[in-house]
């Protein structure tokens, strides 16, 4: 059945205004919860971006000269293969093209650095997971002197600290987001319950004259959806415009400490959209629950 939108919008609007204090409470709590959720996602993106080379347990990177010959590279391949599994658990090769993609990602907040580099200047590398983490410095020294090797990096400590800091922050923020979200849902349910109570006479008349269940329910559902959406839009604005501040809570770039962590507008936009969808869903679910529980049709 087609529901005439002017009627539904008018009813939804009057419900929202009639209970303005509860509406504001629901919207603010929703915004706080979703901001915490958005913040976690923003921080995760920043940390992932900064530590992209050191994921999946990689502790040591052997950077080859950008001009290293193919024999030098295949020699290194064979040598590393011969050390598996005694000293090295596994290694994989990253070519120039892949390295250039990563470089652009790590320094996406520093366009000047990206400008002065190019694909040909990128060193190919071997990413290695040592069999025993404590042996990493011995291994690094051993490879440092090989022909064609530019440098061997094992900034394990810095990365581990960065990831640990992030993990703590993430857990705290997720607990906050979850707790406040429960509060937000309860407030949405309560707001809808009050709206249903305030309109009980209208609802009785609507049932009497043959309004369909959906016609009766939709204004209340839209009220919850609106509360979720408005809260989510506030959270979206905060996470989008304060994304670099949020990212800096986890620390600085572990490779170039003078550089702050950076999140691209594109990534923040995707996070924001996700947050808005979550807000709308939570609002709709909360009001859906309230309508089912308190509005017998």
């Amino acid at each position, binding site marked *: *059945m*087609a*529901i*005439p939108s002017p*009627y539904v919008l008018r009813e939804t609007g009057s419900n929202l205004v009639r209970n303005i204090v509860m509406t504001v409470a629901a919207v603010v709590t929703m915004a706080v919860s979703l901001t915490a959720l958005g913040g976690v996602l923003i921080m995760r993106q920043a940390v992932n971006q900064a530590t992209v080379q050191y994921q999946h347990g990689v502790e040591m990177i052997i950077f080859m000269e950008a001009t290293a010959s193919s024999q030098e590279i295949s020699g290194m391949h064979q040598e590393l293969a011969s050390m598996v599994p005694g000293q090295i658990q596994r290694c994989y090769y990253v070519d120039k093209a892949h390295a250039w993609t990563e470089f652009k990602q790590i320094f996406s907040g520093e366009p000047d650095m990206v400008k002065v580099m190019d694909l040909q200047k990128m060193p190919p590398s071997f990413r290695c997971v040592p069999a025993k983490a404590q042996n990493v410095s011995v291994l690094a020294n051993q490879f440092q002197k090989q022909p064609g090797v530019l440098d061997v990096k094992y900034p394990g400590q810095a990365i581990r600290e960065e990831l640990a800091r992030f993990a703590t922050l993430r857990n705290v923020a997720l607990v906050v987001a979850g707790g406040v979200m429960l509060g937000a849902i309860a407030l949405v349910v309560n707001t809808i319950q009050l709206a249903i109570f305030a309109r009980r*006479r*209208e609802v*009785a*008349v*609507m*049932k*009497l*004259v*043959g*309004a*369909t*269940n959906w*016609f*009766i329910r939709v204004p209340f559902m839209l009220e919850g959806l609106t509360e979720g959406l408005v809260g989510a839009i506030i959270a979206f604005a905060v996470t989008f415009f304060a994304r670099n501040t949020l990212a800096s809570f986890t620390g600085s770039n572990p490779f170039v400490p003078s550089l702050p962590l950076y999140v691209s507008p594109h990534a923040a936009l995707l996070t924001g959209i996700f947050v808005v969808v979550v807000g709308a869903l939570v609002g709709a679910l909360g009001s859906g629950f309230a309508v089912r529980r308190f509005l017998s049709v």
Partner: protein
Amino acid sequence: MIRFDHVSKTYKGSVPALQDVTVDIQRGEFVFIVGPSGSGKTTFLRLITKEEPSDGGEIWVAGKEVGALPPWKVPYLRRNIGCVFQDYRLLPERTVYENVAFALEVIGRSRHFVKSQVPQILELVGLGKKMDRRPNELSGGEQQRVAVARAFVNRPLILLADEPTGNLDPATTAGIMRLLERINQYGTTVVMATHQHDVVDAMRKRVIELDHGTVVRDQARGIYGMVDA
């Protein structure tokens, strides 16, 4: 138009409200349901609109078996039935016009339809000049006229009235009864529950008397208390 076929209804933990009731009401009839308080009059009406399910038997309304209707079809059944109550059930913050228009808006009628029908029906009930008043600015009789207008604006096949004159003085009651009779003359089946003797006696319509949930009398051109000689 309305057929009860061996219908029974018992509320939880209570005595039976209706027991084995069989009644047939034809299209265009005007029927009084009479009996003392607790005799089952209101239950009889609530079963017609499926506000309550029956426990046994079949109820047919406007060609549909009410018990077999899925919940989503019940609103469409109710669009064929107008209801009027003793306590009017008007929306206090809406004007007379808005109260009547509300009944059409919420079943999705177009704005154009609402604008054409509502003034017409308010003229019919004699409130054409009080469309902008709120219910608390009207007398009891006028409020009940608004309720009748709201029940009739969708031109239902059936009008159910549960003690519609219970709160009104005799003169106002007579006015409301004339209005219901006029609606009946338009072809709408009217079923009115009442325990007011004078109202029933004055109209000389079919009377169905209930006592402890059973039909004890079903009489054409009846009066309230005794068999018409």
